[in-house]
């Protein structure tokens, strides 16, 4: 499953361009993003929007894993980002499900809430985030 999801991530142009690496995809989804120079802000630490991309990648996988089928579409609805510290170097984003509402199996529609913590290489939390997703079964 992990290799399959990594292939899916690599097929998303914007995610692939950040070099995201899926490290775990169980109850917790963990994604590593390299701290490459182009991800920096004007202060030399990781840009807030680069950290967002790491968080959203992990959160999106966690939401999709609720119904891991090719016709499951995951759409981000709203996000709440809270930055805790500046980030230097590689970061890892860990996502876990907060709640799931709706009867996806019968209606093809549900809503998921996912929490994410992004940490630097020393384990310091640099970003805490919450994502709301709409899950939809795509039409054949």
């Amino acid at each position: 499953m992990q290799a399959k999801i990594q292939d899916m991530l690599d097929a998303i142009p914007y995610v692939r361009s950040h070099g995201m690496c899926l490290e775990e995809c169980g109850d917790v989804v963990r994604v590593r993003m390299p701290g490459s120079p182009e991800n920096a802000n004007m202060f030399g630490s990781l840009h807030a929007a680069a950290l967002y991309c790491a968080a959203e990648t992990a959160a999106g996988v966690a939401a999709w894993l609720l119904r891991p089928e090719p016709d499951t579409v995951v759409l981000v609805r709203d996000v709440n980002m809270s930055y805790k510290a500046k980030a230097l170097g590689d970061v890892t984003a860990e996502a876990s499900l907060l709640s799931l509402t709706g009867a996806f199996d019968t209606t093809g529609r549900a809503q998921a809430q996912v929490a994410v913590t992004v940490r630097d290489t020393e384990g310091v939390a640099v970003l805490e985030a919450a994502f709301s997703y709409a899950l939809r079964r795509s039409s054949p």
Partner: protein
Amino acid sequence: MTESERLNDVWPGDPFSEWVGVEHDITNPGQVRVRLTVRPEHRNAFGRVHGAVLYTAADTAMGRALVTLLDTSEVCWTVSVLMNYLAPVTGHTVEAEANVLDHSTRLATVQTEVRDQDTLCAVATGTFYIAERRT
């Protein structure tokens, strides 16, 4: 010196937003509009513009809008952002227009709208911390 020239002196840019391709468009005190031409690497799995790209445009616009009101000895950074996605971006250009709502303390509140031509695609409210620039 125009407002845009002053802004470029204070905030010459950052590697990430430049890499994404966010370009400065309009600047007034407390108000900035940025523009982004959609490239193939901006797409998500459905061929639409990735939500993180819209977030980058919004965050950059908000930060630059706040900088227009700061003293040259001050800098700012993002503390928190609440963003709502309203519609997908399917076109070739994204614009984010930010307005500073309040900067009376060390914490400033900035709001932005992200548009795909005439369609409002996302709205965001950000809180930014204002600090003295370290020499």
